[in-house]
């Protein structure tokens, strides 16, 4: 596009355009980056410095905010809880969805489209709508302050998206592959387990990444299910820490920076799967 513009308007105007273009992007970049930088650098200040010296580098540097958090057991405890909940949720939702998606993609039976539509409708109802009755239900089942009180509902609400993505992928695997496997004596389960799942590795990676991120950031459900601090996940820990040290801004900044690290690290590693999964539904008509 730029090349065409340059042809028509001459090099000088093209350069002007590209400079103004850069300016817009840089301003917006600053809008995104400044809060993050403020948090990282602010974590090295003390609260006095934050108001007297808001923009400069810390002097002196106060690493205690960070080290205090790192040496406190509760941060690591929350990290382990978050990891456990995320991994368990992902295993359950991807496992069950793969099985269901296999049936939806490869078998014909009465009521298939009805059941599939039922699952697909679930896309429209995130936690907020169901959380109160869910709480009543889980209390009856004795799942409060139990990690499965968070894991199972998260998995249930993840089913629609996961099934839709996996079904679409399973449909792209040629029927000949299945026929060849059947001729070689493969059962349906053998085909699913030994051929379909290995072939679907990229799609499985995508839905797993989506499930991990959703679980990692979930706040509403753990908030109502976990009363016991021993089960708190990172979002709950952040909220609690903020209440506890509300006057000590710098310490809170250090805490949230450390809480950001795992999510950003995961994003750095799994960027392609994450973005691929999020945009899968929205682009290809």
């Amino acid at each position, binding site marked *: 596009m730029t090349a065409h513009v340059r042809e028509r308007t001459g090099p000088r105007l093209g350069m002007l355009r590209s400079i103004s273009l850069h300016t817009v992007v840089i301003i917006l970049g600053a809008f995104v980056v400044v809060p993050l930088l403020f948090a990282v650098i602010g974590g090295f200040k003390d609260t006095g410095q934050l108001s007297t010296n808001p923009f400069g580098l810390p002097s002196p540097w106060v690493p205690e905010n960070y080290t205090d958090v790192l040496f406190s057991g509760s941060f690591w405890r929350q990290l382990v809880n978050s990891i456990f909940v995320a991994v368990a949720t992902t295993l359950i939702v991807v496992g069950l969805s793969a099985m269901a998606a296999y049936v939806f993609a490869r078998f014909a039976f009465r009521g298939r489209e009805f059941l599939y539509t039922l699952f697909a409708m679930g896309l429209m109802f995130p936690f907020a709508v169901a959380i109160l009755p869910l709480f009543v239900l889980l209390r009856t089942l004795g799942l409060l302050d139990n990690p499965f009180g968070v894991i199972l509902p998260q998995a249930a609400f993840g089913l629609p998206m996961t099934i839709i993505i996996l079904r679409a992928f399973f449909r792209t695997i040629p029927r000949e592959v299945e026929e060849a496997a059947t001729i070689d004596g493969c059962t349906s389960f053998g085909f699913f387990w030994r051929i379909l799942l290995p072939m679907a590795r990229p799609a499985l990676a995508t839905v797993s990444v989506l499930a991990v991120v959703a679980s990692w950031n979930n706040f509403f459900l753990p908030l109502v299910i976990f009363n016991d601090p021993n089960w708190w996940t990172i979002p*709950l820990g952040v909220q609690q820490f903020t209440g506890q040290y509300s006057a000590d801004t710098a310490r809170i900044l250090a805490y949230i920076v450390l809480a950001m690290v795992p999510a950003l690290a995961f994003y750095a590693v799994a960027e392609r799967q994450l973005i691929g999964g999020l945009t899968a539904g929205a682009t290809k008509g």
Partner: protein
Amino acid sequence: MTRPALTDRPAAAADLPRRAGPGSAPSARRRRFRGLATITLFLLPALVLFGLLVLAPIVLAAYTSLYKWNGLGGLPQNWIGLDNFTRMFADDVFLGDLRRGAVLIILSLVIQLPLALAIAMLLNQKMRGRAFYRLLFFAPYVLSEVITGVLFNMILSPESGLANQILGAIGLSSLESSWLAEPDTVMMSLFLVMVWKYFGFHMILYLAGRQSIPKELGEAASIDGAGPWKQFRYVTLPLLGPTIRISVFLSIIGAIQLFDLVWVLTAGGPIHSSETMAVTMFQFGFKRSQIGYGSAISVVMFLISLVFALGYQRFVMRRDTQGAITTMGDQR
């Protein structure tokens, strides 16, 4: 082949006849039984989990919404018919929730999405560092709402928050404000945080949509003498239709269900001036143990989402399954 998740209506069952094809009689029956067993075994776990934890709660909410119930004891006893609903629609806070939801939706559609679209178009061009910017703009989406909320609580704090410090430093101290603590500015501040957190997500959607448009179309238009603006207006924008419609849909559904960010930033305050339906539901259902009334709010949220989603699919996204534009997309 990945059809858009939200428009994925029952596809033509092209593979129906093949399965049911003829075979030798006894083995066909056996295979059929085997098939049925496989279907049941594979489908049942997901169906049970979904039925128990997604569908049952919605039914349960409809049931409890007809009772006055503090959540104690077995099942609710005190049947009050539709009183919870009449109370809700006479409640200024709830009516305010609806108005504030509408404000957020309109702000989102008028400011956030066009901004995301503009940035996506800029980043689609060849420029230095565009991969970096893409990574950067999307990063806030990965952070949890809680972290975002706490961070912006610090930044927008009236005493020595970063926002006021910056305004003071560039000589605009007249614009300093107490942001989240002021009923007049709280919605604007909330929206600002939402833009920070979510515009990168919409940008990524648009970028992906833009990249799936064949280059030749732009080239053809430019040969026909269309400048960059005309190319955008008459080629890119119409072809981005499906993506834009999904992005609008997600944005509206998100606003209807908004909870985490508001809860952490303001808890709905000051004096309900940033409260959303989900926050009101949480206040009554969990904080004041009025489970019946809280359930009634859940039911209304559910109905609003349902009516909106079905209507949107029926009248807006419908176009995506017909017409030349998307058919072309399908064939590629």
